[in-house]
């Protein structure tokens, strides 16, 4: 029993030292996760609203200019990658070292607890590897997103002079009348100001 435990612990410790956990933010090659944009994105916390506009055909992301100050490039920064690799490696070494020191104690209860913890940690790391960089879905606007017609999965980014929050305006205007559930208002003219949206959701 002790040999099996030691072998399992050795395998788990060895797997923790593999480089794969250190690249937890890099998506698998075959995934559909889009590449991170190389444009500078804000890392400050700014107010953000998601609205649905039935009179708009396209989706728009409206960013007031003031939020673009003091930003730093995230994905293009080499320091960011070095940070992740070193921090991940250090955490892996810390867990491995701590488990090794605990296992040196010849107490069965401690050894079983550590083995269980290592199995749980490894499972958690492996399950998060492929999705570590994907943000959780926004649950507040599921209906609006479902109503965005096929082909409207792109977004136009607009930088505006004024505004107090970053807005994602989903265009829910329908081309096919038979699929409409609501009245179909006139589409906005090109260049016209954005119509008032009828539904908004401000995530916390």
């Amino acid at each position: 029993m002790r040999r099996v435990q030691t072998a399992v612990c050795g395998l788990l410790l060895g797997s923790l030292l593999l480089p794969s956990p250190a690249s937890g933010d890099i998506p698998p090659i075959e995934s559909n996760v889009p590449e991170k944009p190389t444009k500078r994105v804000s890392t400050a916390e700014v107010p953000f609203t998601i609205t649905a506009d039935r009179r708009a055909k396209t989706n728009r992301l409206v960013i007031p200019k003031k939020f673009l100050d003091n930003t730093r490039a995230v994905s293009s920064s080499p320091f960011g990658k070095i940070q992740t690799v070193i921090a991940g490696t250090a955490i892996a070494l810390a867990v491995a070292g701590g488990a090794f020191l605990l296992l040196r104690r010849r107490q069965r209860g401690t050894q079983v607890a550590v083995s269980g913890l290592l199995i749980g940690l490894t499972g958690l790391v492996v399950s998060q590897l492929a999705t570590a960089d994907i943000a959780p879905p926004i649950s507040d606007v599921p209906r609006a997103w479902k109503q965005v017609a096929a082909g409207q999965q792109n977004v136009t980014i607009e930088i505006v002079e004024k505004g107090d929050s970053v807005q994602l305006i989903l265009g829910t205007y329908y081309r096919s009348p038979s699929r409409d559930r609501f009245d179909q208002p006139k589409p906005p003219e090109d260049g016209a100001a954005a119509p008032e949206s009828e539904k908004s959701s401000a995530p916390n």
Partner: protein
Amino acid sequence: MNTTTATYHNAEASTESRGRSVFAAAFILLILVAAALAGWAPLGFALVTVFLFAGPHNWMEARFFLSRMPARWGAQKHYFLLGAGGILTLAVGSVLWPTFARSWQWETDSVLLGLAVWNSAFLLWIVALAVLRFRETRREAWLWTVPAGCLLLAANWLQPLAWSLGLVYLHPLVALWFLDRELKRRQHDWHRVYRRILWLLPVVVGGLYWQLHNAPHLPGRDWLTMQVTGQAGAGVLSEVSSRFLVATHAFLELLHYAAWIVLIPLVGYAGSPWRLQKIPLAQRSRVWRKAVLWILCAGAAVVVALWAGFLVNYPVTRDVYFTVAILHVLAEIPFLLRML
């Protein structure tokens, strides 16, 4: 005869109990008065405490380290060589890399990289000293510094600025740790009382936070105010009032100064700090005795020069002092590890 002995023991116990009570009362009073003053006038309090106590506390620290340095290193040669080498290398590095950053106009990422590298070198130095302590003592507890050091390394690389700020706030507590070890060795009764009183610290800091975290930031964009607020982390923790940050840092600094100037000498070497009988290096030979005397005299001259510098030009002297003061911050580490 039995009555006389019993009376003697009773008198002794009564004296010890009175001493313990006086110590506890004085320590609690120090904490409360320091917190009140720091909260009431944080900037002024910070400036005055540094002016009055920065130099003397460094002198007392040097005196303490001299009394703890063995006359001959012997088997501890590697430990003290690594300690001294680390102190000098890290001190020079801490001066050089910001100088390079300013001269070569490094971008933010490069500055953060430099900071993270220095912090990592500092951590690895401490872990290396701890491993040497393990080899001396064979106590397995020392090996836990390796995984703990790795965790701190990860935290440093994820948030180097916050990590450095953490060091700024933790450093004043190191003096309290020294005091804890001295009390454990020499005044066991006072040690228990001391540890209970230490629980007052988070309560007091919580009180300062409750009163000041939403207070307006400290006014003034002059060099001195920016120095003090910058050191307290106002640039990093911009969502917290700089008034609270400066008050907390100044409060902890005063405890640090009080520990080194009054409490540790009281416990550690009751008697005059200028008496050399209890300094092992001074007993080694006449040459060493003269060298120790010269070090202490030169240190006293530096303290006087520091006071003069503060009076002539406070901001410049403060800048120079805190640049050089990294030496004493680093020197505390090997001596503290020897006491654990």
